């Protein structure tokens, strides 16, 4: 276990800066997930921690030691790649023991560690196989096993599940969560799948274009996003955003309806343009603000139905815990005002 401390970390490729001063403290044993859209710099940040990318500026400390210029192998980390990065010509056991063998560790120690890791990951029957003879999920477990064998302080995962099919992804997600509970190492996990982030993380770091947008527990990000980007990124289906206009210190007008927002601490100025955010799952309240929605499509998933439609010309998705049917043309939606999140036109939260 080890704490990681990142201070004003920057990365440039030539003239182009892609990480713009990121600061973050990670507690020992914490499971931190980096999320963000493609190209936001998640992998780059992780690879800088791993030592696979040079740090252009800023400090990286692991376990209290400055690691900026320390060799990757000396940082006490192990990494699991999206592509698994297994050695195709070696058996599973040889793949897992590669690092120890290169360091000329004693044979009985190698055997013991490989056996332990194989037991944790249920890889025992596969130890003599080559990666080509494994399924995607099994390969991923081998890649994780290879990391475990190194007995690292910190595990780094770069989108480890994105090459797996949906079902297997859920299964492996649970395995990784269990693994974290068993080993209780510090783990940093990169994904662009917000479900993985929500289910695995102790804390989520939301990145956009090389900046941290918000850091917090999954519930904090879900309930109390700092800005429209985080609000839209966390939660599925994503939060609805409707154009609104302040028509009182504590009320806004949306699609011709006045919505009172008594919980607001700030006083709104009349006529200010705003964005009103409301999650699809909160449009099924029994009392609160009622609006009529013109239904375009109803997607029935069995347990829930996602109803796509418009309110006063603005598109909206509502969730229903019941069958809606395709014939419905109009649907009454209802939400409690305390579920509304307000944002200014630039996306900053208005609390």
């Amino acid at each position, binding site marked *: 276990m080890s704490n990681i401390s990142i201070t004003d970390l920057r990365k440039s490729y030539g003239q182009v800066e892609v990480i713009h001063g990121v600061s973050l403290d990670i507690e020992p044993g914490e499971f931190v997930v980096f999320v963000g859209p493609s190209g936001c710099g998640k992998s780059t940040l992780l690879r800088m921690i791993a030592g696979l990318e040079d740090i252009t500026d800023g400090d990286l400390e692991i376990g209290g030691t400055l690691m900026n210029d320390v*060799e990757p192998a000396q940082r006490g980390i192990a*990494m699991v790649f999206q592509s698994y990065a297994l*050695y*195709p*010509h070696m058996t599973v056991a040889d793949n897992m023991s590669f*690092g120890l063998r290169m*360091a000329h560790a004693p044979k009985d120690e190698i055997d013991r560690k490989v056996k332990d890791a194989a037991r944790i990951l249920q890889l025992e029957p596969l130890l003599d196989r080559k990666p080509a003879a494994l399924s995607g999920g099994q*390969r991923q477990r081998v890649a994780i096993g*290879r990391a475990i064998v190194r007995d690292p302080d910190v595990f780094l995962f770069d989108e480890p599940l994105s090459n797996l099919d949906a079902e297997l992804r859920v299964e492996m997600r649970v395995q990784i969560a269990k693994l974290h509970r068993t080993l209780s190492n510090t783990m940093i996990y990169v994904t662009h799948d917000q479900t993985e982030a929500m289910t695995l993380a102790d804390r989520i770091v939301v990145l956009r274009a090389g900046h941290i947008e918000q850091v917090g527990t999954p519930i904090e990000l879900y309930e109390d996003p700092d800005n429209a980007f985080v609000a839209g990124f966390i939660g599925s289906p994503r939060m609805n955003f409707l154009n609104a206009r302040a028509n009182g210190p504590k009320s806004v007008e949306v699609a011709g309806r006045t919505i009172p927002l008594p919980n607001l601490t700030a006083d709104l100025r009349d006529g200010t343009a705003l964005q009103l955010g409301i999650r699809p799952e909160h449009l099924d309240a029994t009392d609160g603000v009622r609006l009529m929605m013109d239904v375009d499509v109803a997607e029935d998933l069995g347990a829930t139905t996602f109803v796509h439609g418009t309110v006063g010309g603005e598109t909206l998705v509502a969730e229903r815990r019941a069958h809606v049917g395709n014939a419905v043309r109009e649907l009454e939606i209802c939400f409690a005002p305390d579920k509304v999140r307000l944002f200014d036109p630039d996306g900053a939260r208005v609390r």
Partner: protein
Amino acid sequence: MGVSKTKQPLRKRGGKARSEERRFAFLFVMPALLLVVVFRIVPLIWGFVLSLTDARGVTEGAFIGFDNYAELARDPAFHDSMANTILLIATLPIWIMVPMLLAILIHQGVPGGKFYRAVYFFPATLSSVIVGSIFNVLLRNDGQLNQFLELFGIGAIDWLGNSNTALLSLIAVQLWATFGMSLLIFLAGLSTVPSDMIEAAKLEGASMLQTFWHVIIPTLRPIIEFVAVVTTIGVLTNMFGLIYVLTAGGPGTSTTLPEFLIWIELGRMNRPGYAAAISMVLFVLMAGIAYAQVRIMSRNVNV
């Protein structure tokens, strides 16, 4: 690596449909097959038939059974050419290691890698006659190489005129002239080695050398095998021009390779039957070596 679960296509179908499908498939393979038969197999058989005759020049030879082969077994020139061939094949590791190591260095991104790549490849675009002419000058008794060596107090060596050095000089020149092609093949192969595999090795503390030996070279195995086979065939069949220009097989028989011997017997001695017999031996030799190489290399690769 890559695709994991390829589903086996359903094989069992109605026998009739299958044979029909086969006939149809055969139709597509036909043209290529025809070309191979007409231009490869037929000449091979024809050559074999020729080798059983005592054909001389234009006259059609009489059938003499395996007499040509019996004569080969007693022919000192042929023995020498075989000995030279063995020496040539013994240098094969150099033919593979040199381009491979240079390719790895270029791939690692040494400064000016692209320049080296172009320079190394350049001789491969030259005809062997030109290469031969260049080295005829360079390796002469008063040539530049000897002048250069003299700076270090090493006396002049008649590189091409001395039977101890002639073959090695020839090999060195051919190596210089052709390794650029192998280098390009290795570079192409290296670009398919996944970079995160190398990064994984780095994270696990493998040294540069360990990464080469345990990760990169095993991944390159199919390429090494390919280069080995192609190079073997190349040195056994493509050195004629160089020999002709540089040494004409001499001094004595010290640079006579089977290929050159074939030409002597055919062109100078006018004995196509005998030349055909040497060709057959050369063919069997090459097929044998290629087969052995593929077997050795593929024994423990199942990537």
